[in-house]
């Protein structure tokens, strides 16, 4: 295995990790405020559909992105309405959102485009094209031409860092921003408090309902970015159920990361890396033993279970998670 292969796997890791990262941070905001959200999958799916559909109709990926985020926000509001205002069961509301998204997207796609639940393929300005960092192409050409030993390292720049869509860089930026908002602002402190002990927040005269709505809406925004990246960044259009369980993997990553933003980045990169490795090798030969790639694919779930069982550290969810807040009984 040469150096370039390693870089290519890492490059693939970045692409696979970004949708997970957006969804994971989305779940982080929501769960930190005490709203369990298994509707991430559904929100990503509606965002994927509306971003691709609007981009296909208008030819502008930016309008598509806005439409995707708007759709995810509306679904987030539905979840908020059910679980905050009406104090319904958050799990059931999340499941309902997933089903609604799965059925609705195909139905509308069929009605608008008559292509068996797909949107037309996007091209040109209809999708996020990869950005080549300055000098990346020149370096790649130089690498191909010359076989000097020092040139290999340049692959880190032209293969790994360059050639991603803008949303990838936004995704990485979202991690420190999330950290700063949650741990360095008054809003973040209150948001975390509302997930641990909403009664105390209420006693301090801060509205629990407003804080939780804010968290759910931020969750909608981020899952909208996740969906839009899938449909207009990685793929070129929407296909039925194209999120393929990424919302649930993001939830696993969230537990794995113990509800912390920087750990979330690590967890998503690890999960993405495991996927990239299993994509690249059908069988991983470690000399003594051979590991089938199905095992590598299952590793994220195994690791999550191990962490949940408390073998390695402890994953303690926000204490008020899943419980609707009732002011007075």
């Amino acid at each position: 295995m040469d150096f370039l292969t390693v870089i290519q796997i890492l490059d693939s890791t970045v692409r696979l990790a970004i949708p997970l990262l957006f969804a994971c941070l989305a779940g982080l905001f929501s769960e930190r405020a005490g709203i369990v959200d298994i509707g991430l999958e559904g929100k990503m799916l509606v965002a994927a559909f509306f971003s691709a559909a609007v981009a296909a109709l208008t030819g502008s990926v930016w309008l598509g992105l806005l439409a995707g985020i708007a759709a995810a926000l509306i679904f987030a509001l539905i979840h908020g309405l059910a679980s905050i205002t009406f104090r319904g069961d958050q799990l059931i509301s999340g499941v309902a959102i997933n089903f609604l998204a799965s059925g609705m997207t195909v139905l509308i796609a069929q009605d608008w485009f008559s292509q068996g639940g797909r949107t037309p393929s996007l091209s040109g300005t209809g999708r996020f094209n990869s950005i080549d960092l300055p000098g990346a192409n020149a370096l790649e050409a130089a690498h191909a031409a010359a076989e000097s030993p020092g040139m290999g390292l340049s692959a880190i720049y032209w293969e790994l860092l360059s050639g991603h869509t803008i949303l990838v860089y936004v995704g990485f930026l979202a991690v420190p921003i999330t950290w700063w908002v949650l741990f360095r602002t008054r809003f973040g402190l209150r948001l975390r408090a509302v997930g641990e002990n909403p009664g105390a927040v209420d006693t301090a005269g801060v509205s629990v309902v407003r804080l939780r709505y804010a968290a759910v809406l931020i969750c909608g925004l981020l899952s909208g970015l996740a969906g839009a990246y899938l449909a207009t960044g990685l793929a070129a259009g929407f296909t039925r159920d194209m999120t393929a369980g990424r919302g649930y993997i993001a939830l696993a990553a969230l537990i794995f990361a113990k509800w912390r933003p920087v750990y979330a980045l690590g967890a998503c990169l690890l999960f993405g890396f495991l996927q990239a490795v299993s994509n690249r090798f059908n069988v991983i030969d470690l000399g003594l033993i051979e590991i089938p790639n199905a095992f590598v694919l299952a590793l994220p779930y195994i690791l999550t279970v191990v962490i949940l069982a408390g073998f390695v550290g402890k994953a303690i969810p926000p204490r008020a998670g899943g419980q609707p807040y009732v002011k007075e009984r």
Partner: protein
Amino acid sequence: MTALTKFLGAAATLALSAGAALAEPGLVIDLGGKFDKSFNESAYTGAQRWVEETGGDYMETELQSEAQREQTMRRMAERGANPVVVLGFANTSTLEKVAPDYPDTKFVIIDGVVEQPNVQSIIFSEHQGSYLVGMIAAMASETGTVSFVGGMDVPLIHKFACGYAQGAKAVNPDIEIVQNMTGTTPAAWNDPVKAGELTRAQIGQGSDVVFAAAGGSGVGVLQTAADEDILSIGVDSNQNYMHPGKVLTSMTKRVDNAVYNAFEMGEEIEPGINILGIQDDGVGYAVDEYNEELITDEMKSAVEEAMEGIASGEIEVHDYTSDDSCPVM
């Protein structure tokens, strides 16, 4: 239950005797939808051709959900449609249950085997068609590596992969073949993002022609191939138009011919298993205005020769599903 069966049987007999004089063929379009650019659309095209050429009429319904299979089949039979054509292996178990209740109605299932006295099962020799496109792929490849992206890891898809590998090896015994499956669950048919990522990993391993037999995920393969400037091969329908000049050819499965012939035979259709291979024009490769510059005369003559060889039995293409193994992989 018996009362119900009797009642339904009686209803069927009534319907049959009423409509015996004007039995029309019936077509049940499967879940992908009439305009899915692939399997179902091909069947629809065949039915339309029959209408144009014979001036006849046929009944058609489009399934909207998994739960409607049985109901739709029964209603077709009760309305006097004969033969009733159903599409896709997902119908196998339902048809096995429904067919005995309507002994006077003929059923045709495409891509599945149902052993009932009034059912014709149509199977395509996908391995033969894949052999042809494998040859073309090997001749078009400059790197000496070609690849395959499958949908769900099922024997039918290995049948495609194995035929493809045999064709490629027939042209160039030293050729490298990289094979990946998108997943092990039905979600693998609709994950263009992962399929695209697999394609990128294959390109990293040197592949410059990729064959996609992955349902909806195939869109991601063709898109990535076009983005990364390598050649791709479509499947089922002629998909050459999707990225003109980038899709080398398509392995066509003539579902339209099968439907046309079934309609043409009408009630006289023979029960049993009907295998459509190269000699029956059941499978083949597509050349049209979008790819004619990619297909050289040398390729054409080699493939025509192989087609004759397969038809005469001189070249034997191994069918993966016959013994669940592939001699060349």
